[in-house]
């Protein structure tokens, strides 16, 4: 499978802290890749650099189906246009808008009605609007929110807000979906439902790159896992092997050198 996303020697510093240190990785088309690592390892910083929220100090991000284009220096909305959308670690919905409107915002880049055709009656704009509404409702159906489309997004229970955020990210029909800790704050049943949703998206051929803390979520759905620690990539491979990798265990649990030193 050809690569869809290539991150090459990415470095990002915050003052003296090196949040990302020379990270190189790639995501192939159709793959589900998990990104794990202890708190502060630079996972979200990596997502922010890929989506244009942060500018990397060094290195490059390339993306594309077929010919790869550099994303470095592009604004977030240009990157969304290229086909990468995301969710956020702390859900960032448009809480004063309805559930349906939240998803409709994501169709902005796939519709084209300008100022004049938005202001005056226009058959083209109406057709486009109907398409957007159908698409949004279809996605709400997929995440199980179709019955609550007119509620305010801010009033939804947290678990549903996470699902709504995924629907919103999908509405522009992205080639790559970035999920930043989609299971955080969910209960066991909600986590199970989330796993099913991600499986279902995978079945539809969507490429997913997800940050996740919960191993019971990330291990079963990931084809490959990348591990970051202190901004460096310390391991990469199939979930099983990564789980047994001593450097990964050390990063998560600390070293055991003090044990058994004295008889």
């Amino acid at each position, binding site marked *: 499978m050809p690569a869809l996303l290539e991150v090459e020697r990415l470095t990002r510093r915050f003052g003296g802290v090196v949040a990302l240190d020379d990270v190189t990785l790639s995501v192939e088309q159709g793959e589900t890749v998990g990104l794990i690592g202890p708190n502060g390892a630079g996972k979200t910083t990596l997502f922010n650099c890929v*989506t244009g929220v942060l500018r990397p100090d060094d290195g490059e991000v390339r993306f594309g189906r077929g010919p790869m284009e550099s994303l470095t220096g592009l*604004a977030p909305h240009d990157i969304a246009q290229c086909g990468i959308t995301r969710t956020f670690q702390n859900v*960032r919905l*448009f809480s*004063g*808008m309805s559930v349906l409107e939240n998803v409709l915002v994501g169709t902005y880049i796939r519709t084209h*009605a300008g100022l004049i055709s938005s202001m005056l009656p226009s058959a083209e704009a109406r057709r486009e609007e109907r398409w*957007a509404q159908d698409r949004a409702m279809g996605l709400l159906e997929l995440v199980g929110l179709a019955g609550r489309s007119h*509620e305010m997004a801010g*009033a939804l229970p947290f678990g549903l807000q996470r699902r709504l955020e995924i629907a919103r990210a999908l509405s522009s029909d992205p080639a790559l979906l970035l999920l930043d800790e989609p299971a955080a704050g969910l209960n066991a049943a909600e986590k199970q439902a989330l796993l099913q949703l991600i499986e279902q998206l995978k079945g539809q051929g969507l490429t997913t790159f997800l940050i996740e803390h919960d191993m019971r979520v990330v291990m079963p759905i990931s084809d490959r896992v990348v591990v970051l620690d202190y901004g460096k990539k310390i391991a990469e491979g199939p979930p099983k092997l990564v789980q047994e990798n001593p450097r990964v265990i050390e990063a998560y649990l600390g070293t055991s050198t003090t044990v058994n030193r004295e008889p």
Partner: protein
Amino acid sequence: MEGFRNQTVRWAIGVIAALALPILNPNPYHLDVLTNALLYALLALGLNLIVGLAGLLHLGYAAFFAIGAYTYGLLNLHWHWPFWIGMIPAAIVAGLSGVCLGVPALRVRGDYLAIVTLGFGEIVRIAFTNLEQWTGGPNGLLGIAHPKIWIPGRGLIDFGVASMPYYYLVCITTAAVAVVCVRLSRSRIGRAWVAIREDELAASCMGVPVLQLKLLAQGCGGAIAGLAGAIFASKQGTVTPDSFDFILSVMVLAMVVLGGLGSIRGAILGALLLGSLPELLRWFEQYRMLLFGLTMIVMMRLRPQGLFGRSSQGLAPDRAHAGSA
């Protein structure tokens, strides 16, 4: 669909009532108060696009009103442009000035943007006061032509100083702009504005070009104020810089906030209330501004989201009481 039809009926009743009013009550003083209130409503509709939808706090909105008024005034005095043609460049120039202001001003957000726009409002007013060779300085522009309209059988009629024609002019313009604003707010552009107001970073990650849309909001809001300015200039026959002071900007903002940020009927109702309240309270004489202030305070205490605003934590307004478990 049911709701849609109800709404259409409600709008139709409103329009018919508005059109019939001068025939039922031809008192010129009442009409004049109402015309001014409707002119405020036009301004509130424009500011609602900037503050209510796009969430950009703007404290110098009167400047766009002034630019529209002066544009029509100068075009009429120097080149005898009639009102019906002159109002178009008035709207365009005011809209462009909104975009031009936005390019530097939109680098800052929130309170800082409010300060920059406040400065803009003052600069425009002071510039019009001091550019004496063009604007007539503090005396302003005098002798701007009133609109003329051709009626079959009666020839060309000058609006003059009568109240009724201006009432109709402002009423129809405000209604037309309101319809355009409703359409706009339900379009992809309107949704993108609200998304920017709600969460700018999330909006940009969803593909909304934030800066471009903020400039568009400033441009549209500016153009509406420019149109209102041209009407104002043609109605008064004179424009002086002191008509466009900071208090006007604050008044229009208060109308938008009272009606509920982002709500179009709210903006209109807020403007009608606040625009006519000082006149309705006139028999309280010196206490009227006190009562005015008190009304605002009570309002903010009891209903901070405004008359028609939706609160982000609650349910959509039509279900506010249905599903609270």
